């Protein structure tokens, strides 16, 4: 795995010097700033019983739907389309190192974008004059939730990218996967058919993997090992599938 760090540092350097990264960051932060200012409008009109951080993170799915496909669709699909993946693999690097290097670079950028939203809370703290608005519990819990779930979502994006040469298809497939894992599970838990007695085990599985339920725990400062294991094992599963997918494509190309 010694070449993993080389690939990772290369990918991160390419991201940090690319103009598109900063354009994406400006747009992302602009949208999230707009969302956050909308959230704070409610707090100026009447007292609320939920902290602004908890409300902000309830909208985690909005950037996830758009940023994850955009960050990951180029990962492997572009390499395969240009034919550089086979060239790269002639070097003494394994498929695992390549996939992990690209994955962690995408995850690094994903977390960098989310971490920069901490600036919003700094601004809020400056204006609110009440330390409870930036209470550490919901803030840390929310960012931890983003970090843990980001592992899975970026891995799903990399998996989608490993299946095709076309960036657009990879992006759309990543969007569908992330949509199903976020809103899809929440919708499934409200379906009437799932409340039948015969669907008890499926209902349990849906409730277990519902990210909005996990978010409630994280923003209240509760860490559950089941939720951590779910995301970590899901990440490993998606990455292994990505590696297997790339190797299968290489075998049959």
């Amino acid at each position, binding site marked *: 795995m010694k070449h993993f760090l080389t690939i990772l540092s290369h990918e991160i350097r390419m991201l940090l*010097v690319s*103009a598109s990264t*900063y*354009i994406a960051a400006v747009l992302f932060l602009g949208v999230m*700033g707009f969302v956050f200012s909308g959230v*704070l409008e409610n707090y100026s009109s009447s*007292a609320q019983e939920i902290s602004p951080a908890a409300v902000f993170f309830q909208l985690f799915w909005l950037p996830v739907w758009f940023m994850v496909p955009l960050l990951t669709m180029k990962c492997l699909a572009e390499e395969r389309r240009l034919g550089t993946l086979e060239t790269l693999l002639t070097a003494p690097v394994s498929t695992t190192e390549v996939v992990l290097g690209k994955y962690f670079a995408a995850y690094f950028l994903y977390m960098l974008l989310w971490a920069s939203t901490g600036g919003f809370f700094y601004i809020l703290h400056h204006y609110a004059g009440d330390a409870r608005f930036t209470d550490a519990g919901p803030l840390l819990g929310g960012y931890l939730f983003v970090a843990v779930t980001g592992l899975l979502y970026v891995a799903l994006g990399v998996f989608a990218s490993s299946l095709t040469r076309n960036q657009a298809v990879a992006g759309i497939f990543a969007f569908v996967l992330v949509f199903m894992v976020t809103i899809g599970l929440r919708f499934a838990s409200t379906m009437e058919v799932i409340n039948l007695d015969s669907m008890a085990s499926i209902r349990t599985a849906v409730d277990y993997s519902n990210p909005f339920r996990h978010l409630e725990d994280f923003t209240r400062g509760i*860490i559950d090992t089941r939720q951590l294991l779910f995301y970590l094992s899901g990440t490993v599963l998606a990455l*292994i599938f990505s590696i297997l997918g790339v190797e299968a494509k290489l075998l049959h190309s």
Partner: protein
Amino acid sequence: MSPLPSFRAVRWIRTLNLLAQAVLVITLFGGLNYLAVHYAWRFDLTRHHRHSLSPETLSYLKNLPRPVRIVVTLTEDSDNAQVAQAYRDVSGLLREYVYATENNPRGRVTADYIDVFQRRRDAEALGITQPNTILLLCDGRPRTIDLPALYQMQGGEKQSFLGEQVFTAAILDVASPAKKKIYFLSGHGEMQLDDVSPSHGLSALYAELGARNFAVDSLDLSQTRAIPSDAAVIVIAGPQGRQQPEEQELLRQYLATRAGRIIALIPPMYSPGLDDLFYDWGILADDVLIYDRGPDGQNGIGDLILRNYGDHPVTRQLIDNNVPVRFGTTRSVRTDPGRPPDTNLLVTDLVATAKTAWGERNYRLRNAHQFDERVDLRDAKRGLAVAAASERVTNNGNLQFHVPGGRLVVFGSADWIANGNLATIGNLSLFLSTINWATDRDIDLKVPSRPIDKFQLSLSQSQLVRLRYSLLLLVPGAAALLGLIVYWTRRN
């Protein structure tokens, strides 16, 4: 034929190898998560473990003897913000109860969330017809939790969330095999449980008590000559005749020697024959009829609107929520000013009229009634009391608690619990609080309440605009500036 396999065969063998790896990884994923469900830990990182159940609740749940199903009909997307917030509070709390009892095979707590409009059939099967209901079920026995009971109010604002205390008490109550039994006396013209008339019937009250896991029956002391051993509370609802001396003696013995609980609703114009009993317990029921000509004291049909409460567990919820009660014909019932001093007897006036009310002694006369200070009763400072509670406690020397003895609550009116008046929200709440106090249902769990934090931005319009622009421009601007620096550096 070459002994070496062909490229094609090798390719397919390697593909099968990859497929096998995929299946194994999926199995590993499923197995790990299945194990995680049964071997899990939850860590509450908040200060004082705000969102975790207290050790007392956890010890009760660990030994829960029967499974309890909790059905919640609150919805998160309700138009009512209070209901939506209650949903979040209740669902977060119930998740802890479910997790805490996962490893208790006999006494598991499960929570179901039902939208009464989307799943009407399921709701009707459970006897739920209204939304915003919380129902506990154990072996078919129901127990309802009212939404206002979950919050401590002050000045109309929610101060703290009492959910853990309320749910733990309700779970313990419904999982307990024995139902508390309430006997309504009969034989002297009292209001009857099977009477559906709006002015005199108690059928609605019977249903409400059943929904709260009480067993209810009627009792005619002139027939039985004894109070059953399973009597948790005796209710005397609007007698029109006098209790016989031997019946009164049975009730006195019940209160004094069995730490019994009696709720007496004594309307005016009838003498209940319980004067000695009331005297023993420091309560005086005056033979007067209350009138109130003040602007806020009576409604259009002459019912008394009462808002003046004494501080007592029976009236606490009415005080917190600022809810009035409505009584029809009412007499004065108050702490007996002539009672002998007794430190073990705690008497409290529960409900009083407005200061403009008076107790008319000559109510049988047909002329228009006016206050006559020579004969009528009035308390211009505090209003006339129309209900009182008396409790005998035993102070065990240096111990920091009192051992409760008998409890007696007397109301000077009875029609407020009739079918036609029970729907008045304050009336039902007052009677249920009285029953809960009489049956010790308010278990004094040492469970801390969860204070409710309120977040509000107190900013002027210009500050709000500056905040909005800061959020939209500062952080994205910083990212843009960084991008420009990187671009310029690369160019040079």
